[in-house]
């Protein structure tokens, strides 16, 4: 089934849906331009703007539901951005509204959480300004009706990510991590830009309607566009080969890691792939590459996650892995789109809940991140333990919690498509079971391995209530979306639907195998980390452990392939500039100076030497005239 037709819209809440973008943007502007004067109430303004955006989003969603199924793709014209090339507008359809609800809903909860988490930070007002900026940019990304608007939002979230990762600018590690994120993203942006150039030259337009409608035509370089879009998605979603920035991005404050690097920004790549599905369906090669990237990343993320002692880095590895699942599903075509987005939404809930829980733990343990110094926190932080636990169960795919529905849906869809992909995804699920259990047991169970001055206590209500609300989503979200193919039908006008919708078979071979592997993994983690002694210093481990600890040597590879040659190149250029160019210029100046210094000695001041030069000149003239033959 093809996606539905797009209708222009005016009036109603959908007509003012641009408020969703404008309000947080206004909040960011006020807080940044207002400066220290806004410090006392800045965070409240930030939360208010985010909640206002959420309210508009819900109202838009309700109005959209009021329309018939075939009428649910609406474009709101805004203004002419580039005359003759781009008309800016917003596309409100099931795909974008799903993202909107996720971004504004989870985003607002994280805003509220940050009031408490950043209460001791003098830069709190600036933090909320950047958060609002991020929300505005992300909403523009998902709501724009053309590739240029989406790109503006794409760059905006990149900027917000940079500002927020490097929020504690005085820390060199944070500043470096922010730069790394931005630069690696840039590589992906290059792919996206070249894809946009190809789109313009092929279709003469950037708008989704005309472009995607004609994506399947002959003479369209769909494979090239698809692969370039995939490159852009890899940069933003931290997929192989552009995954190196995500773990370093944990230098930012924990709410940032929760919102941007778990729930929303890193999912922008998946949005791009799903939105541009028409290209991938027209280019099976590109689709294959997408699935391979997805599977490779989900395994790589899982392996990295097993070896990290930093709780946030372990969760980051988990994020990388789960997005790998989403990318895998998106690469399967119409069968997988609904599962990819559904998993994206449920992942947003349980990952954000776990990150905020980790933040709560860090807050209690004086910002300590090493899990080897945690242990036995369950008794002291009950709410955090409960919400984190529910999120943990969701992510490993405990039956009936949200992750079970969505992740197993992906595994089944992958199995349909190609058994290899399916079984690799199953193995990934087993690994997920292991390393997430490791995190959970090391943190909340076992013996207390706290430092001398740690007095952990439960976090204040402003931090725990968002945790509770998020865990509701972790528990019920999956079932709500998948049972009865509810989400599939909702999403189909936006992305099309497969000929035969995939039924959910919980008792199939892959399903049972997944559960068994997860159980084994969790059990092994319990024996190693829950019951026995956890060494205070990480043991040396085998070659595989080192391999995983060093992020599968991703950084080392980047350094040797790109950074060192780049450094040599710049050093060569500097050398050439200093010696060559400067030498040339200075040499010229010195030459002129020296020669003029010597030449001026002709000016002796004596009339007789001038007379001598006159005589020489006369002789030369006579000779010249003789040569020419005039004499």
């Amino acid at each position: 089934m093809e996606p539905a037709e797009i209708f222009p819209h005016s009036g109603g809440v959908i007509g003012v849906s641009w408020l969703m973008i404008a309000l947080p943007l206004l909040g960011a502007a006020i807080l940044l331009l207002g400066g220290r004067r806004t410090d006392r109430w800045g965070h409240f303004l930030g939360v208010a703007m985010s909640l206002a955006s959420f309210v508009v989003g819900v109202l838009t969603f309700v109005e959209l539901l009021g329309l018939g199924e075939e009428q649910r793709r609406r474009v709101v014209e805004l203004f002419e951005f580039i005359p003759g090339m781009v008309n800016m507008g917003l596309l409100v359809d099931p795909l974008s509204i799903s993202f909107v609800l996720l971004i504004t809903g989870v985003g607002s909860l994280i805003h509220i959480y940050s009031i408490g988490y950043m209460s001791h930070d003098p830069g709190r007002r600036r933090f909320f300004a950047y958060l609002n900026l991020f929300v505005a940019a992300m909403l523009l990304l998902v709501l724009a009706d053309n590739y240029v608007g989406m790109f503006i939002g794409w760059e905006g979230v990149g900027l917000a990510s940079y500002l927020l990762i490097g929020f504690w600018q005085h820390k060199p590690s944070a500043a470096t991590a922010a730069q790394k994120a931005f630069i690696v993203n840039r590589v992906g942006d290059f792919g996206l830009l070249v894809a946009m150039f190809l789109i313009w030259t092929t279709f003469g337009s950037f708008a989704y309607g005309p472009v995607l409608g004609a994506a399947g035509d002959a003479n369209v370089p769909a494979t090239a566009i698809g692969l370039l879009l995939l490159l852009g998605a890899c940069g933003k979603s931290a997929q192989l080969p552009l995954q190196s920035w995500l773990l370093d991005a944990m230098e930012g404050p924990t709410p940032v890691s929760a919102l941007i690097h778990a729930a929303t920004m890193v999912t922008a790549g998946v949005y791009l792939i799903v939105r541009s599905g028409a290209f991938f369906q027209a280019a099976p090669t590109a689709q294959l590459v997408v699935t391979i990237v997805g599977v490779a990343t989900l395994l790589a993320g899982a392996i990295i996650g097993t070896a990290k002692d930093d709780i946030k880095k372990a969760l980051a590895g988990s994020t990388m892995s789960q997005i790998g699942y989403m990318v895998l599903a998106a690469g399967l075509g119409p069968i997988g789109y609904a599962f990819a987005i559904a998993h994206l939404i449920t992942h947003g809930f349980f990952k954000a809940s776990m990150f905020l829980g980790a933040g709560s733990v860090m807050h209690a343990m004086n910002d300590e991140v090493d899990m080897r110094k945690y242990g036995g926190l369950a008794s002291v932080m009950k709410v955090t333990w409960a919400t984190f636990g529910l999120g943990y169960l969701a992510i490993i795919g405990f039956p009936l919690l949200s992750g079970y529905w969505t992740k197993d849906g992906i595994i089944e869809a992958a199995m349909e498509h190609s058994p290899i992909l399916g079984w690799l995804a199953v193995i990934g699920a087993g690994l997920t079971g292991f390393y997430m259990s490791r995190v959970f047991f090391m943190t909340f169970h076992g013996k207390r391995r706290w430092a001398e001055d740690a007095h952990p206590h439960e976090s204040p209500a402003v931090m725990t209530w968002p945790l509770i609300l998020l865990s509701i989503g972790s528990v019920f979200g999956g079932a709500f979306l998948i049972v009865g193919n509810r989400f599939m039908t909702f999403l189909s006008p936006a992305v099309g639907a497969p000929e035969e919708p995939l039924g959910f078979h919980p008792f199939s071979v892959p399903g049972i195998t997944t559960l068994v592997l997860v159980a084994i993994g969790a059990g092994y983690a319990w024996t190693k980390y829950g019951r026995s002694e956890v060494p205070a210093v990480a043991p040396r481990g085998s070659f595989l452990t080192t391999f995983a600890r060093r992020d599968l040597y991703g950084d080392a590879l980047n350094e040797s392939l790109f950074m060192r040659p780049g450094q040599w190149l710049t050093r060569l250029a500097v050398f050439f500039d200093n010696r060559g160019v400067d030498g040339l210029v200075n040499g010229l100046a010195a030459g002129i100076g020296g020669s003029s210094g010597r030449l001026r000695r002709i000016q002796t001041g004596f009339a007789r030497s001038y007379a001598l030069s006159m005589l020489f000149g006369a002789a030369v003239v006579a000779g010249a005239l003789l040569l020419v033959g005039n004499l």
Partner: protein
Amino acid sequence: MTTHYLVLSALLFSIGAVGVLVRRNAIVVFMCVELMLNACNLAFVTFARQHGNLDGQIIAFFVMVVAAAEVVVGLAIIVTIFRTRRSASVDDANLLKY
């Protein structure tokens, strides 16, 4: 025959030119200039004979007139300079050097 006169004229002119370059006494330099003028006169007279009209001689005559006037003024200048500086060397005016 005519060519010989012309070559002699050129030779005397060059000797005069070298003299201007080499001598330091202003009056002697002046005398070398006179030598050059005389050489030119010889060339003019020779050409008058060659072409068969007297224009060359007229020109030589006027050259003599002008040379006389020039000598008068030039020597007056040299005398004036000598009164103040008590030296007649042409190398004294050397302030415009590097």
